[in-house]
């Protein structure tokens, strides 16, 4: 990145400053990862990492999709439907004449366009994001059902094998997603997200392209969601028109867990990524601890609240 290591230091120190809010969570996540590795030593191997990152990747992508919107002062209840849309487009096109490249392009375009459409409605018409995206979830979900009325379709086996086989491609994809996000945030449009989210009037007066930043956020969010759908389809080898449903609430949980605020401009993407990691690793840890389902539910509730409340509780409050 051209930005790194400039003479009067700015980029990395500014990055470091943004770590402050997520330190507590990062500690909790690290502890859970360590516990997981202790319970299941097989994790520390190529295929261990491969398998774990495969189950984590879709959640990271949707959590990022949600966090972008929340940073921009929005929220989406359509994430799950967008994942389903991505999955069914992939499963109906990739094995056909369009091929993998054509199918992937179609998935991305669908995500960008649908996301941007939501963004335009929310931003230009000034409608509350939560209901617009609720409506969008029905529209997009309906479209997914039209494309593929029941689970089926196919993904070429080589694609499934390379994305979700024994090699940790998924882990690389997580890294790629984070790097791309860093790059996006290093563009004027990306950085504007924070200003537009925190105080859009002031940002507008300061010449920040507020509306474009927010609409772009919706588009990027849509893109990430449908890409998550593509990966899910590859991972499962086929499409399912309702596969994404659980992602909507999970993405919100991960982002909020990661300290991304609901009112815009608060928090950082690394928090959302860590939040999604915690949600994902928690499932495996509880399995290896031998918890029965009832204990799963109770423990999950406790861990989620604890991960948020503990750092908050121990941090000395410096403002009223």
């Amino acid at each position, binding site marked *: 990145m051209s930005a790194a290591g400039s003479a*009067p230091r700015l980029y990395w120190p500014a990055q470091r400053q943004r770590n402050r809010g997520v330190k507590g969570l990062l500690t909790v996540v690290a502890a859970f990862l360590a516990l997981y590795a202790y319970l299941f030593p097989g994790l520390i191997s190529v295929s261990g990492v491969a398998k774990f990152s495969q189950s984590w990747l879709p959640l990271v992508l949707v959590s990022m999709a949600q966090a972008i919107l929340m940073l921009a002062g929005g929220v989406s209840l359509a994430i799950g439907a967008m994942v389903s849309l991505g999955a069914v487009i992939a499963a109906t096109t990739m094995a056909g004449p369009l091929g993998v490249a054509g199918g992937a392009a179609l998935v991305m375009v669908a995500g960008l366009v649908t996301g941007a459409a939501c963004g335009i409605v929310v931003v230009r018409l000034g409608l509350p994001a939560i209901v617009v995206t609720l409506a969008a979830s029905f529209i997009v979900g309906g479209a997914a059902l039209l494309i593929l009325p029941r689970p089926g379709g196919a993904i070429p086996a080589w694609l499934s094998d390379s994305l979700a086989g024994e090699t940790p491609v998924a882990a690389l994809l997580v890294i790629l997603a984070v790097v791309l996000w860093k790059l996006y945030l290093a563009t004027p449009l990306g950085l504007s997200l924070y200003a537009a989210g925190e105080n859009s009037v002031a940002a507008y007066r300061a010449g920040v392209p507020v509306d474009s930043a927010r609409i772009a956020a919706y588009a990027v969010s849509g893109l990430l969601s449908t890409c998550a759908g593509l990966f899910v389809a590859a991972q499962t080898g086929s499409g399912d028109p309702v596969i994404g449903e659980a992602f909507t609430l999970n993405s919100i949980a991960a982002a909020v867990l990661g300290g991304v605020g609901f009112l815009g*401009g608060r928090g950082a993407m690394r928090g959302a990524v860590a939040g999604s990691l915690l949600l994902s690793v928690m499932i495996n840890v509880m399995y290896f601890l031998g918890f029965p389902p009832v204990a799963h539910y109770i423990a999950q509730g406790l861990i989620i609240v604890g991960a948020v409340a503990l750092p908050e509780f121990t941090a000395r409050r410096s403002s009223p």
Partner: protein
Amino acid sequence: MTPAPTLAARGVSKSFFGNPVLRDVSIALHPGRIHALLGENGAGKSTLINILSGALLPDEGVVEIDGRSFRGLNPRDAHRAGVAVVQQELGLTSQLSIAENIGLGALPRRYGLIDYRCLARRARAAMDLVGLDEDLATPVGDLPLGRRQMVEIAKALFREPRVLILDEPTSSLSAHEVETLTSLLDRLCAKNVAILYISHRLNEIMRVCQHVTVLKDGVVTADRSIEGVEAADLVRLMVGRDTGHLFPAWTPTTDRDPIVSVSGLSAGVLRNIDISIRRGEVLGVGGLVGQGQEDLLLSLYGALPASARTAEFNGRAKLPSSVRKANALGLAYVPADRKREGLHLIHNIGWNLMLPSFARAFGLSLRDRTKERALASALADRFTIKGDLTRQVQALSGGNQQKVALAKWTPAEPQVLLLNDPTRGVDVETKREIYALLRRLAGEGKAIVLSSSDTPELVHLCDRVAVMREGRIVATIEREALSEEAIVAASMGADLMRTAA
């Protein structure tokens, strides 16, 4: 023959919901001239600069840049044409670093990415101009108000503007920072920048500006060179009549027993503070901005977890542990940042005035609207808040918002008033009213703690001034010894005093 104005408004009118705010206003900003815009709270100053900078569109009239008239000017066009505005206290993004904030809206880029190297260099240069020595990467949310104001100014300078508009830039600045700013303005002026300067501090205007436009109720009442004008004349133009002295006569109070005394107070940045507040006095709290003044007020108010060796509040031997307990002990607090801490901007004025009463009342009793209206009207009259009280507070001008923040505590009849910079952004006339009110309250035996960045205010109004530095009270200056020099000396530190002595 003066050169063509860089930025001008011609015959501009603007009304909000049918209420005319500006009527046929013209103003011309010339290069190399510092132009003052004066007016009471609500006169239309901010509205005018919003029009000049493209943030609002006028109903009638045009904005001209270099003689070219613009109909639908927007902020980006204005920026491109070299117009930069220092908004007061609202424009920053708290999570981003100082440098990123300074660059926002005009970020240097390379290959489509932000050029952080260039940004750092140029932001540092802009910060040096205004005397900001903080780390470039510090999130703006970490900065105290006064420093944020300096960031706002640096942000305007970053764009190397040809026209610089400053809306009350000094209202949260310390004397030292004001010095830095004025010399900076002189230098910019020498570089042919056109400057529009809004302030309610007349001495600053007299010192800095060369030309003045006075607005009263949305109409220009004067547009002239400042040479030969007296401060009193300006006040008359703004207010429309002769006014008395700004500061009320100071009379020593007889009632001297402490109502609050605390020793060994620690909280936030505070370290081991001893303080006692007496009935009938105005106790000033001074010092450079951000030395713990706010934490002191908040910890006395129960809003900041605090510990003390001994504490005595109105006969009770404990620090209040919550705001409610403090209220019950007769304390009230008026915050400095009225928009974030003092007011509910989206609610109407009457509602805001009644909120402390709502907080005290039994929750499920029925509200008496008639009584509420009568009380709110009486408060509005007393604090000269004009007009309809069903408007949202955010539609009020800054000064009038401050009046609401003050007025809302009156029905609670507090014994101890903790005031954090209460006259920031308040016009002279209102200031005079507030000062008179404070002295009157003191005369009634109330205790008043006045933290202020406006040193003359401390000198003329207070019985004693406690000067803070790095979380401690470094000096308490009694009335007899009070002077601006004494306060500044104490706030700059003992070393300085020793060398000075």
